[in-house]
C-alpha cells in the first residue's frame, strides 16, 4: 500500500514536471513554426539588418528594434544592477538582521506592482522631467531604462541577498580575525564567495527587462529608429509585436511572429553567455 502511494506520487510529479517543459517546447515550436518560414521567404539578412519597417509597403526590417532592445536592456542594467547589488550588500552586511527582514519583503513588493502602473508613472512623472531637463520628446530610451531599472530591483536585490546570506559566517569571521575591516571583508570575501548568485540575480533581472512590454510601450515612444542618444525614442522587439499584433494580417502577421523568433534567439544567446560566465567563475574558484 505504502509502495503504491510512493510510485503514484513519483508519477504525478513526473507528469507535472514534463508538462511544464512541454508547454515551453510547444510555445517555442509554435512561434518558430509561424515565424521561420517568413524569415526564409523574406531573407534573414533583409529581415535582421535592414532598418526599413513599413508593413503597408511590405518592408520588414527589424534592425532598429534589435538595437533598441539591446540598449534598453543595457540601460536597465546600468540603472538597476549597481543599485540592486549595493542595496543587497547594505541590507545583508551593515543592517541588523531584524531590520533586513522587514525591508526585504517591502522591496519585494515592488515586483507586485503591475507593469502598467510603472508605465503610467513613467509617462506622468518621468517623461515630463526628462523633457524639461534634457530636452527631446521625453518618451525615450532613457525613460525606458530608468523604469526598467527600477522594475528589476526586487529581482536583483532579493536573489543577491539570498546568495550573500548563504556565504558561511565563518568566512567573514576568518577575514575579520585577520584584521580586515567590514568593507575589506565584503569586497574580498563575501562578494567573491557569492559572485555566482549575484550574477544570476542580474541575469534574471536582464530576462525581465528584455521581455517587459507594457511599461516599455508606454514610456519608450515606439518610433522605429536607431537611437543616437539616450533621449531618442525607440521601439523594442516586444513593443513591436504588441503594438501591431491586433492589426496585422498575412505577411505582416508572419513578420511579427518572426520578430518573436528573433526575441527568443536573443534571449537564448544572452542566457547562454550568462550561464557560461557563471560556470567559468565557479570553476576558477
Amino acid at each position, binding site marked *: 500500500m505504502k509502495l503504491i502511494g510512493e510510485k503514484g506520487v513519483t508519477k504525478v510529479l513526473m507528469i507535472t514536471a514534463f508538462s511544464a517543459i512541454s508547454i515551453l517546447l510547444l510555445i517555442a515550436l509554435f512561434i518558430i513554426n509561424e515565424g521561420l518560414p517568413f524569415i526564409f521567404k523574406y531573407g534573414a539578412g533583409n529581415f535582421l539588418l535592414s532598418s526599413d519597417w*513599413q*508593413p*503597408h509597403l511590405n518592408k520588414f526590417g527589424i534592425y532598429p528594434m534589435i538595437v533598441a532592445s539591446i540598449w534598453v536592456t543595457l540601460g536597465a542594467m546600468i540603472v538597476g544592477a549597481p543599485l540592486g547589488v549595493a542595496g543587497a550588500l547594505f541590507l545583508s552586511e551593515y543592517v541588523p538582521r531584524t531590520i533586513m527582514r522587514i525591508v526585504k519583503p517591502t522591496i519585494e513588493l515592488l515586483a507586485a506592482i503591475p507593469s502598467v502602473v510603472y508605465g503610467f508613472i513613467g*509617462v*506622468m512623472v518621468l*517623461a*515630463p522631467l526628462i*523633457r524639461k531637463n534634457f530636452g527631446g*520628446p*521625453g*518618451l525615450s530610451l532613457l525613460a525606458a531604462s530608468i523604469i526598467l531599472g527600477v522594475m528589476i530591483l526586487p529581482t536583483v536585490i532579493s536573489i543577491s541577498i539570498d546568495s550573500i546570506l548563504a556565504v558561511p559566517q565563518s568566512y567573514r569571521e576568518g577575514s575579520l580575525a585577520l584584521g580586515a575591516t567590514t568593507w575589506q571583508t565584503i569586497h574580498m570575501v563575501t562578494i567573491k564567495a557569492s559572485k555566482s548568485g549575484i550574477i544570476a540575480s542580474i541575469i534574471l533581472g536582464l530576462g525581465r527587462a528584455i521581455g517587459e512590454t507594457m511599461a516599455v*510601450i*508606454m514610456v519608450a*515612444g*515606439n*518610433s*522605429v*529608429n536607431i537611437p543616437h542618444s539616450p533621449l*531618442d*525614442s525607440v*521601439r523594442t522587439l516586444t513593443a513591436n509585436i504588441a*503594438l*501591431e499584433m*491586433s*492589426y*496585422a*494580417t498575412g505577411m*505582416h502577421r508572419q513578420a511579427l511572429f518572426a520578430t518573436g523568433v528573433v526575441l527568443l534567439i536573443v534571449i537564448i544567446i544572452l542566457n547562454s553567455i550568462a550561464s557560461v560566465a557563471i560556470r567559468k567563475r565557479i570553476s576558477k574558484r
Partner: protein
Amino acid sequence: MFRKLFSALIAMAVIISISGCGKGKTSLTLAGSTAFQPFAEKLAEKYMTTNPNVTITVQGGGSAVGIQSANSGAAQIGMADLVTLPEDAKALTATVVAKDGVAIVVNPANKIINLTTDQIRDIFNGKITNWKEVGGENAPITVVSREAGSGTRSSFEQIVTNITLKKDALIQDSNGTIRETVANDANSIGYLSHGLLNEKIKALKVDGQDCTVESIVSGNYKLVRPIFLLVKGNLEGEIKNFIDYILSEEGQNTIKKDGLLPAK
C-alpha cells in the same frame, strides 16, 4: 465560516449562470474599429433594452480585424473606419453608419491655429522640424502618430497623401494615448478622432477650416472618414434590424451626442 462563504459563492455562481441563459435569444457579435467601438457598445445597450430577445457583443481589434472577422464569420458585423475599403472587403455588404473627422491636434500652449495640408505633410514627413518654420515659436516639433494598421492613421495618410512618416516620430497605440502625449508635450503634434477631442488639447484649422461638426457635415473640413459596418451576404433578420436602428433618428442622435457625425 469558510464553508459558509464557499457555499454562498457557489450559490451566487449558480444564480448568475442561470440568469445568464435566456431562451430563444439571438446573439450578434460586432468586431473591429476601436474608434467606433464605444459608440457600438452604447447603441447595442440601448437596442437590447427595447429588444430583450437579442444579445449583442461588441469587440474591438481594429479595422483590419473587423474586415477579417466579417469575412470569416467570427463576427456577424465588422466595423471599419477607412477612407476606402481594401480588396478583401469588396465582397461584403458595406453600410456607412457614421462619419468621423480626424482632428490635427497640438498642445494648448502652442500659438499656431492653422496649418495647410502641405505643411501637415511636411511636418509628418520630417521636412519641417521646427515650429518657427510654420509661424510658431523656435522649438523642435515632436510628431506623434499611430501604429501601422490603425484605421485613423491610414485615413489620415490617404487624405493628406504622400506621407512617409519620419523615422523618429513617436508612435502611440490608441487615440487616448495620443491625446495624453500631446497634452503633456508643449511641442508635439498628433491626430485623433474628432469624437475624442477635449480641453486638454487644441484642434488646428486645416486649410483655414475649423474641425467642428458643422464644418465636417458641410464638407468643408477635408479630414473626414466614413465608418462602415460590414456584413457578409445580404442584410436580413436581426442584423438588418440592428443596422436600421443605428441609422434611425434615435440611433443617429446617440452617435451625434457623443461626438461622431451622422451618416447623412
